[in-house]
């Protein structure tokens, strides 16, 4: 193995999975570093769970290969891969006690009960469930089962831990608490976590890197910061956080910026990886928190827009304005909002050049809509 391979602990190389006519995973290549908290993020049906199952060995890829710790494990069955999974419904064996559940993977490695005991106790303490050994699945709450599932998957100290939307069934406060706990455990143990979720907030708060997927394709792989501030497709832009989309025509293309005519206004946008020619129809995206109302400083983009909606959100306001047939949302800090503004009035909205990204107009269908 050459040096480049050893940088990544897990490599998915051109993984494709076809079920009859449906292509669930389409030529996905991902490289994951050892000790990383890596998330697969996307809407339901995007292929993230299938990809996870392929890594686990529970599903065979139609083509492509998987490298784990430098070894090709594509043909290695699940029970011989040094990877464990925490399932969405936990899958605690109901006919075994908690203790026997956790002993199970050790038993499969032919470790005697005597040798196993301290390991089991240690991992129970890790998830704060010591003393629960004699209980059975039906005697546990959802959150408790989840922790046992985690303990069971960790006790063998696998090379990587796969988690399939483990927090989906928990209610909000518990979920947030578990996110912190999971992150702490991961940092303590230094084990690679591959985490599947459809909750983008969850992915952004917990991950070192994220692969954003849709319809079996990875749209972008990057750090939370990159995903959020430099989305590479309108899908990623619209899926993560809130995003404004405007349409216009590119009037002038310079080395560093693009001048776009939107309705009666001219705006200046950042020039990125997409090749835009003059006269081309384009999509302009800018985050609401980067849309400033009546900014004191002079902004390269300034538009006169009619105030249409004011929504108080507790620690901030979401302000919606309209111009030229487009809606623009803006987030204003609680203190920063001038309450004297009336609905229907015209206010100035603007943004910086680096905060506006341009896409070719064909990518408009990429945008994910809800409702």
């Amino acid at each position, binding site marked *: 193995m*050459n040096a*480049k*391979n050893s940088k990544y602990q897990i490599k998915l*190389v051109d993984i494709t999975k076809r079920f009859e006519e449906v292509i669930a995973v389409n030529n996905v290549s991902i490289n994951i570093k050892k000790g990383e908290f890596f998330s697969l993020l996307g809407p339901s049906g995007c292929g993230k769970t299938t990809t996870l199952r392929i890594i686990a060995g529970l599903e*065979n*890829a139609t*083509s*492509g*290969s998987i490298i784990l710790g430098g070894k*090709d494990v*594509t*043909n290695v069955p699940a029970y011989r891969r040094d990877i464990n999974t925490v399932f969405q419904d936990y899958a605690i064996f109901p006919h075994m006690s908690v203790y026997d559940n956790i002993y199970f993977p050790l038993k499969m490695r032919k470790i005697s009960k005597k040798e196993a005991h301290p390991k089991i106790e240690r991992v129970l303490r890790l998830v704060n469930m010591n003393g629960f050994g004699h209980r059975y699945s039906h005697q546990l709450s959802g959150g408790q089962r989840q922790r046992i599932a985690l303990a069971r998957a960790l006790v063998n100290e696998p090379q990587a831990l796969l988690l399939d939307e483990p927090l989906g069934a928990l209610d909000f406060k518990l979920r947030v608490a578990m996110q912190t706990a999971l992150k702490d455990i991961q940092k303590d143990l230094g084990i690679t976590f591959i985490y599947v979720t459809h909750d983008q907030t969850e992915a952004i708060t917990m991950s070192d890197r994220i692969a954003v997927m849709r319809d079996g394709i990875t749209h972008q792989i990057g750090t939370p910061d990159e995903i959020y501030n430099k989305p590479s497709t309108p899908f990623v832009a619209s899926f993560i956080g809130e995003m404004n989309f405007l349409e216009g025509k590119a009037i002038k293309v310079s080395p560093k910026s693009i001048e776009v005519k939107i309705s009666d206004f001219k705006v200046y946008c950042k020039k990125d990886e997409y090749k835009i020619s003059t006269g081309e129809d384009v999509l302009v995206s800018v985050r609401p928190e980067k849309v400033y109302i009546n900014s004191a400083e002079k902004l390269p983009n300034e538009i006169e827009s009619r105030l249409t909606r004011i929504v108080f959100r507790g620690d901030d306001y979401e302000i919606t304005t309209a111009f030229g047939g487009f809606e623009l949302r803006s987030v204003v800090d609680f203190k920063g909002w001038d309450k004297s503004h009336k609905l229907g009035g015209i206010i100035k909205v603007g943004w910086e050049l680096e905060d506006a990204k341009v896409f070719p107009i064909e990518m408009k269908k990429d945008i994910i809509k809800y409702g």
Partner: protein
Amino acid sequence: MSIATKEKLKKSSNTYRERKPRSYIMGIPISIWLFIIVIIPVVFMFIMSFKLKSGYEITNILTFKNYLDFFKKPTYWKILLRSFRMAFTVSITAILASYPLAYFISRKLKKFRNLFYMMIITPLWVSYLIRIIAWRTILGNKGLLNSLLINIGITKEPLEFLLYNQVSVVIALTYIAIPFVFIPLYTSLEKIPDNLINAARDLGANEFNTFISVILPLSAPGLFTGFMLSFIVALGDYIIPQQLGGTGGIMFGNIVWSQFGTASNWPQGSALGFILFFIAAVVLALTQKFGSREGILAE
């Protein structure tokens, strides 16, 4: 990566064959069973139905005669029609008996529901002969019902019509059929979510309206399945007509059976049996289409 590594990776994905799930191997015993127990016997029976009996031998020439005879001889198809009628009566009666019961247990009873449910279906799985014995005892001239009626003074003489005719057969068949109707019916009634009822009530429907517009339609598949199962059971039975029906209560099953007994015309019997099989198959197909999805084998 180097070309060598690329080649190596390509090779590993090419030697990748889709592993045939172990579950296909699991199918071997049941497939053999299906073949030996269902498919081949039916085929043999089908073939036999085209043969002819002459003297003590069965010829090997294939002919439609047995089937034609079915249509030609009034005895055959008249009794089949009568059996249809009786089976239909049995099913209707069984439904009339079972529906309120199923409704009561599934929607009105809170405690001991399982117990009452088991009490209905247990007779289904046991005591077929015993139930026949019971009805012979009750309905006979010297039977319980008659002696009771005479003792009480309602009648002076034993009522002849109680036994050895169509009525007694229908009663006994209904008795057997009730659990067959009850099970799918109960299952479908039980599955109706409470909040549908609540929604109907909330929107202003009284108990009767709720029943007509919500419960009845939703229980229709179970009702259909129950009716059909009871129909098959009643249509194909021959022991009950034999024990309780006398000469007036013969059903199609008896005719089929007699071909294998005294008349000893197996080809004819096979043809008649196959007609019965065909009817049952149609009924089952209808049940699969319009009835509830699990049938009587729902857990």
